[in-house]
């Protein structure tokens, strides 16, 4: 089965939310800044819990932020 890529709009959303830094987002969702960097690059597939926490931080739904591209 071909590997799916998960793209997201976290970087754009951070800037729309008072230019929130990666560190601030990391602290809000409870992960390291390195995880946020890989997440923004689309190189790390988050757990459902982390995806939900990110969505809650930006007041959006998970599928508004994360898109599956096959």
């Amino acid at each position, binding site marked *: 089965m071909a590997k799916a890529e998960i793209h997201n709009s976290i970087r754009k959303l951070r800037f729309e939310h008072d230019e929130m830094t990666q560190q601030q987002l990391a602290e809000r969702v409870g*992960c390291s800044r390195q*995880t946020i960097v*890989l997440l923004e690059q689309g*190189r790390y597939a988050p757990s459902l819990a982390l995806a939900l926490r990110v969505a809650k931080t930006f007041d959006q739904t998970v599928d508004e932020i994360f898109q599956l591209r096959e």
Partner: protein
Amino acid sequence: MEATSNWLVPVLGGVLALGAIAVYSAYCVWVRRARLTAEQRREVAATPMPKLQKRALWSLLLGLITLGVISAILTTYGAAEYWDNDDLRLTVVAIFLAGMVTHVGLLAAMVSPLWSEESELDERDRQVLAQAPAVQTGLVLVTLAVWNISLIKRFHDQGAVPMVYLYLIFGTVVLVSLIGHSAGIVVGYWMGSRFGES
């Protein structure tokens, strides 16, 4: 001599098979997985290391120093002197215990739910931790194979291995296991910085 050959063939075969599997796995990862671009790697490198990665690096360094010091002492004085000389044996045991305590202080205390109720690890740290035993197990198996082959070759004619080697095998396996755990974590973060995790 024939008895030695009977043992050596499967042991050497096993070591070679393990080595081949490790090399093939590394090749598959290197060739098939998409790598981070140079810009993405720079961005990852610019972020501070997670606490677990830092501690694993220190633990790996101190583990290697401990193993190196103990190996140097045993190579200089020999296994027989270690067995007969109480002071030497106590010194080696003290270095060994210091290495163990350091590992517990640096890594085990951080990852064990026994000591840290409010975990400092995020989900990616836990992913790296879950994969670390692959490196740890491989190193322990290679250590046992090296001991097996070298003891068979060394003591084949006597038909028995001196008891001191049981202590040495145990000590080496424990140390290599701790080093392997730290090395597995370091390798996991390195893989993340080259390939990401998705």
